[in-house]
């Protein structure tokens, strides 16, 4: 208990020190924004970010696996997701920044049924983006972005391979790698509602190759909204909270998708430092998957640890 009180004391002391230093984190009209990984803000800043996440979808129902007349499996299964992201944005001028983001994601079955039926999907790639400030007022900032995204989707499909072998299909493959290159344009809006509260919005449209072989090219969209709360401004407690929602047309880690992917996040961050954030994200994702084995919404829940340093 004494240690906890001491730790809280150190954190509050840290928070009070911020008042005397230059805030390098995004701020407008006395509000310091708590940026999230889900919805990128409108600020042209130099920063580096790293995040590591894990999520799981449990008790998924799978239909019986019947191959050549024999029922092999009829079980429930779980899926596990892991993500690793690295991002660096460099503000060349106070109105333009160049960003590169590298990411790796994996989705895999953790039980025999889900390994066989969902296989393993690995997604990795880069995202190169220009961010340009378009308009700024005392409380708001609007920026535009242009970017190029190269992704690779590697799928290990055991069931599909076995079925293709039995059916005598030419060139059956247990591993398929699908490259996808997309270009996009986005609008980013940040609004300091009051000293403790802020808002970030993102609207993005993209065009290019899809993760699916049978749909070579197509348009996509993404939008997101985040409200953040700086407890330091309200109660002198060095904690920030952010609640966000994102919806996009093309979820990456599924083989067949019949609808948009939705993700919500609750971020709890230690924000005493003027240039650094360490946060825990509690995430919930859902996407409707429609294929020969499943036609339902897959929901996963998890968490991520994220670190962001502003230069």
């Amino acid at each position, binding site marked *: 208990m004494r240690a906890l009180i001491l730790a809280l004391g150190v954190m509050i002391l840290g928070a009070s020190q911020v008042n005397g230093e230059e805030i390098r984190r995004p701020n407008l009209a006395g509000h310091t924004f708590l940026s999230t990984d889900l919805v990128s803000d409108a600020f042209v800043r130099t920063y580096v970010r790293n995040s590591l996440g894990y999520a799981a979808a449990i008790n998924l129902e799978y239909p019986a696996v019947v191959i050549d007349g024999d029922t092999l499996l009829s079980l429930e299964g779980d899926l596990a997701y892991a993500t690793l992201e690295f991002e660096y944005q460099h503000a060349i*001028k106070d109105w333009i920044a160049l960003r590169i983001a590298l990411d790796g994601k994996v989705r895999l079955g953790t039980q025999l049924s889900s390994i066989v039926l969902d296989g393993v999907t690995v997604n990795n790639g880069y995202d190169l983006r*220009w961010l340009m400030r378009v308009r700024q007022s005392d409380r708001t900032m609007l920026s535009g972005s242009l970017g*190029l995204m190269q992704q690779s989707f590697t799928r290990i499909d055991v069931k599909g391979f076995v079925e293709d072998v039995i059916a005598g299909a030419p060139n059956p493959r247990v591993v398929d790698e699908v*490259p996808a*290159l997309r270009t996009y344009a986005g609008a980013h809006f940040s609004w300091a509602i009051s000293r403790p509260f802020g808002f970030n919005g993102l609207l993005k449209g993209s065009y290019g190759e899809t993760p699916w072989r049978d749909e070579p090219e197509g348009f996509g969209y993404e939008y997101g909204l985040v409200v953040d709360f700086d407890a330091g401004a309200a109660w002198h407690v060095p904690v920030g909270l952010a609640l966000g929602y994102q919806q996009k047309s093309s979820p990456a880690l599924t083989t067949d998708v019949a609808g948009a992917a939705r993700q919500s996040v609750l971020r709890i961050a230690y924000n005493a430092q003027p240039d650094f954030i360490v946060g825990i994200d509690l995430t919930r994702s859902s996407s409707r998957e429609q294929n020969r084995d499943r036609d339902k919404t897959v929901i996963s829940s998890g968490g991520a640890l994220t670190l962001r340093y502003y230069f």
Partner: protein
Amino acid sequence: MAKLRTVLTTAAGIAVALSIGAASAHAAAVGAILGANRAGISGDAPQNVEFGSRFGLIAGVQGEFGIARDVLISVQPMIVSRGAAVSDADSLDAESADLVIDYFAIPIVLKIMAGGGRTYVTGGIDVAFLDKATLSSGDVELDATDLFNQTDVAALVGFGVVFPIGRPRLTIEARYVQAFSSLTREGAIPPDQNLPDRFHNKGLQLTAGFLFPLGRP
């Protein structure tokens, strides 16, 4: 020869246009570019084929003019050699053929000066027109021009350093170019042997440039 004539004509056009606009523009300069392209192909590969990188030459001219403080637009018509080293995925041989795809490219680049004018960052679009493509292995050389699209559109991003040498400037720039249009020309060969749809040029370019300012010092 026709390609050289095109480059020279474009260079003359740029010089005249920039000379006329030099008085009103923030800064204007013309010059030349020479460099190397570590070219490759990204996306899918045809069955049992692997692509590696190969080096090609870059030669061209450039003209730039300022549009705002520390911001310039640069047009850089150039001859650029792209392609890839092609190897058999099932073979242990490191390389079995060389695919050379020559273009006449016109990168249109936004140049943002930083570090007090000593460094810059570039971004832009590279529109390239196919000249010829050859696939060679040993003494055998095949004309593969008809397999590829006539136009290639790419995005580029780069970083450069400026060395003043009197009034002219010498620049050294590293640039990444990623095409987002497909290389494959539809219907070039029977569908069962066709090149993949997801098939793009890419390249890491290192260039040296020479820029001579126009107008009075």
